[in-house]
């Protein structure tokens, strides 16, 4: 009997590794090689030349500037003259402070006006008629890679979780009933989401969710092994995260309602971080945890969701730098508050995300360079004025000289990661788990030691691959909001991954941030699932079924 258990235990590490490798590779392939459809929302026809302009995007910019979606190289046209947006109610044209103005059906408009089929739009003397267009351009790369069976993927992830259940149930020789509840519950949650999303949300592609479930499974295996008492809490956070993800998918389908709540969210973010600064007690050198009625949470994790949102809602003011000022002020306050909490890792993550979003909104390298410069000077000043801040990073690049002091976590991470080899020692057989913050900041090391370097390295590489995919597909979202939110969210996640892994392996200074989806922490996992909803927005198929349906008449043009 003992031999059988031993055999199963040693065999399981290969099963778990095989599941992780297969699931992420299969999902990435499906993500990159997929069938996409490009619906046409309408067309503009020049009243004199009969030139046709097809409108694919939810926002189309018109102007003399070459960066506009439709370039009109005439003297009467302003650099950015107008933006034509497509909403559920129809087309709306915005006059973006043009000199010669915009007119609809001969009437000069003030800021914005609805445009209906058959209406004429006058843009600085050029006259166009808006027509309904009924085409779908289909790009079909699916011949290369067959559509995956998500059922099989879910079964494989369930196998992984059953392995976790088996290995964690009797660890330390103590029977732990909550282990059964959590792992079976997690498997059930995945299937419930799958059915719900298929039939209610009408989502038909689940690559990102499957990858998230896979990494969450790795994290949950570790939490159940090291902290069996905390595993129930972690599972509840995952449930909240998946619910939050679904809610956000629904909310984001209606872009029009989004605009109105952005100032509310911005204000709330500033206030929540401010409140945290006041009421939080210092834990492990940072004031970033608050306790409410027995539930402790990390507000900065939840503010991440709002931070991306506020940055991405820019809609009609495309390419205009004038709306950047308020965003800079908002971001500066958030980053400043995080800095005062001594949560430098999160402050850096917010700052980096701000730069990405602000650049996507404005392309204003000059202003952003200035902001970076100011931030750098500020950081240096703080290091000089408060030397103990700098002293936190003093072991950077010298961890082996301070093995048992400041470099303890980093050196142990390297030692035990190397001990694991490519395939790991098996769940529960590690030593790094005994080091402080093993399942949070050091979780990359625990994954490497117990699941192997292959699994450990897969995590950042998969986030990197998703980022590449998001960037390449941002344009297909047909909306600046989806593009900015999706790219911003994956950039935030990837940057955090980089800080986490490179920090504990001494490639970067140690800032102590979590590894998305894998680290223990309720606030963190909820935040990760909600951020995933933004990334999901890049996947235009998410909202395909919800758009006003257009009959496919024309053929598939490439």
């Amino acid at each position: 009997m003992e031999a059988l258990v031993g055999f199963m235990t040693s065999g399981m590490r290969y099963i778990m590794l095989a599941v992780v490798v297969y699931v992420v590779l299969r999902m990435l392939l499906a993500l990159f090689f997929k069938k996409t459809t490009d619906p046409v929302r309408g067309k503009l026809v020049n009243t004199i030349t009969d030139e046709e302009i097809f409108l694919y995007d939810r926002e189309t910019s018109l102007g003399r500037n070459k960066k506009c979606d439709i370039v009109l190289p005439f003297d009467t046209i302003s650099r950015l003259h107008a933006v034509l947006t497509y909403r559920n109610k129809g087309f709306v044209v915005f006059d973006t402070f043009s000199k010669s103005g915009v007119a609809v059906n001969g009437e000069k408009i003030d800021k914005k006006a609805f445009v209906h089929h058959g209406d004429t739009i006058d843009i600085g003397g050029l006259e166009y008629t808006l027509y309904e267009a009924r085409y779908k351009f289909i790009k079909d790369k699916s011949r290369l890679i067959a559509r995956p069976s998500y059922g099989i993927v879910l079964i494989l992830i369930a196998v992984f979780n059953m392995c976790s259940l088996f290995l964690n149930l009797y660890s330390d020789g103590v029977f732990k009933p909550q282990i059964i509840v959590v792992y079976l519950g997690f498997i059930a949650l995945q299937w419930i989401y799958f059915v719900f999303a298929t039939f209610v949300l009408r989502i038909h592609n689940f690559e990102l969710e499957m990858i998230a479930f896979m990494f969450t499974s790795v994290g949950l295996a570790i939490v159940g092994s090291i902290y069996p008492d905390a595993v129930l809490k972690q599972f509840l956070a995952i449930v909240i995260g998946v619910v939050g993800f679904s809610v956000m998918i629904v909310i984001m389908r209606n872009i029009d309602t989004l605009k109105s709540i952005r100032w509310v969210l911005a204000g709330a973010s500033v206030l929540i971080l401010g409140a945290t600064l006041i009421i939080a007690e210092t834990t492990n050198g940072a004031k970033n945890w608050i306790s409410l009625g027995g539930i402790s949470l990390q507000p900065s994790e939840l503010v991440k969701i709002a931070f991306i949102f506020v940055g991405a809602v820019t809609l009609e003011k495309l390419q205009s730098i004038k709306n950047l000022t308020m965003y800079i002020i908002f971001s500066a306050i958030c980053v400043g508050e995080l800095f005062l909490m001594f949560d430098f890792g999160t402050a850096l993550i917010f700052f980096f995300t701000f730069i990405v979003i602000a650049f996507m909104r404005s392309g204003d390298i000059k202003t952003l360079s200035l902001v970076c410069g100011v931030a750098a000077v500020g950081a240096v000043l703080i290091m000089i004025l408060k030397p103990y801040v700098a002293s936190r990073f003093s072991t950077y690049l010298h961890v082996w000289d301070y093995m048992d002091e400041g470099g303890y976590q980093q050196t142990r991470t390297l030692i035990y990661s190397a001990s694991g080899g490519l395939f790991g020692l098996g769940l529960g057989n590690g030593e790094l788990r005994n080091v402080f913050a093993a399942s949070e900041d050091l979780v990359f090391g625990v994954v490497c030691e117990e699941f192997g370097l292959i699994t450990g390295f897969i995590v950042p590489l998969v986030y990197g691959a998703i980022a590449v995919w998001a960037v390449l597909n941002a344009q297909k979202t047909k909306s600046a909001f989806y593009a900015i939110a999706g790219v911003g969210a994956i950039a935030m996640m990837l940057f955090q991954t980089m800080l986490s892994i490179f920090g504990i392996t001494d490639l970067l200074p140690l800032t102590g941030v979590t590894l998305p989806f894998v680290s223990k922490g309720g606030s963190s996992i909820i935040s990760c699932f909600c951020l995933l909803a933004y990334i999901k927005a890049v996947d235009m198929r998410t909202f395909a079924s919800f758009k006003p349906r257009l009959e496919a008449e024309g053929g598939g043009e490439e």
Partner: protein
Amino acid sequence: MKTTARRGYVVLLLVLAVAVGMSVLAVRFATNGEKWATLRANEHLNENGSFIAAGNITDRNGELLAYTENEKRIYSDSERVRRSTLHIVGDTEGYIASGVQTAYKTRLTGYNPVTGIYSLKKHGRGNDVILTIDSQVSAVAYDKLNGRKGVVAAYNYKTGELLCSVSSPNYDIENKPSAEEINNNKDGKYEGVYLNRLIDGLYTPGSTFKIITTASAIENISDISSWKYTCKGEMLVNGVKVTCPRVHGEMDFEECFANSCNCAYAQLALKTGKENIIATAEEFGFGQTFDFGNSQTKASILDLSQADDGDLAWAGVGQYNTLVNPYHMLTVLGAVANDGTAVLPYTVASVTTPSGYVVEETTAQTRAYISAEIADAVKSMMRNNVKIKYGDGNFEGLSMCGKTGTAEISDNQTPHSWFMGFSDNPQCPVAIVVVVENGGWGSSAALPVASDVMEAIYKSLA
């Protein structure tokens, strides 16, 4: 909208940074993984700073010299064996750097870059090491040294297997004296106790160096067989006096070697010439180091660059500033015994996983020193030494060849006592080096040790 999306390409820089960083990390794990995983801080392998994860270490006859039980390292139950094998087996704290437990640490843990230390976790112990040492012979050598400092080392000059290697002073690893006791000891009881004198030792060779001078004379003086010398007890070279303990009278070359006549060898060194002596010594491996496990031996030194004729005369009899390493001397014997080519001694026969898979098996290295003719000529003269001087009765059945040495070290110290020899019996192809520090005459201190150890080896091989 399109421009907005296109600006997102800036995030590819972040992807690039992550890819570069992960590549750097991968390279570091590949190159440093072994070093990191076997650090003392790794608690898979170490308990309170002691290396407990090693597998079993056994001698050539399968006798356990060290193993781990209940996360504790346990050694042979005989104190004689523990002490005599201390420097070969080594300690778990890494003080004895050349010991197998330190030098073979990585291989003992069973670490490899693909599976890490999984084998260790699975079997509860790392890889096993089988040594070439015979622990019972080593114990005899330890007894015979009788607490005196020095080295006893014997090896099979055909295969390279080190059969016996005892370095003194040593301590009982199961009752290790405290670090303060070792460091603060004033009477020299623990002088260089962490060093294996076989590989780290450098001694004045005394008359054993005459083996080199003899070889050089044979090589460079064509009529050496008809050469004769009359010893008057002392001789003046360039104002420097070379002395013999007694007046030897007229002798041929063979008798000069057997009587170990200093005056004759001073004369021979001058006759052979400085350059030729240096050349022969270099042919014999002077100035070279040898790999022993993960350590390197000290190189023997013959530096005649500042030497005048008086110095050359003393160098010819093994004094002056010449220093030799006992391991190197074993190879010199090996070359003389084995037609001029030395098989290099080694002590780790094989490394196997707990499931029996052989990870590593040592194949002996060789170094060609001199021609077979010269080796045979030197061998027959060394055989003659035993026949007419040291007595075959001391080495029964072995057809022993040998040379003693009495190395003067300073005016007020008793000389080091040397014996270097080998058995020409094909049943027992073993060479032995014995150094008894401050032991006095080679024939009175080192020779009896060699006699008893060779007898033990002969019995063990029978």
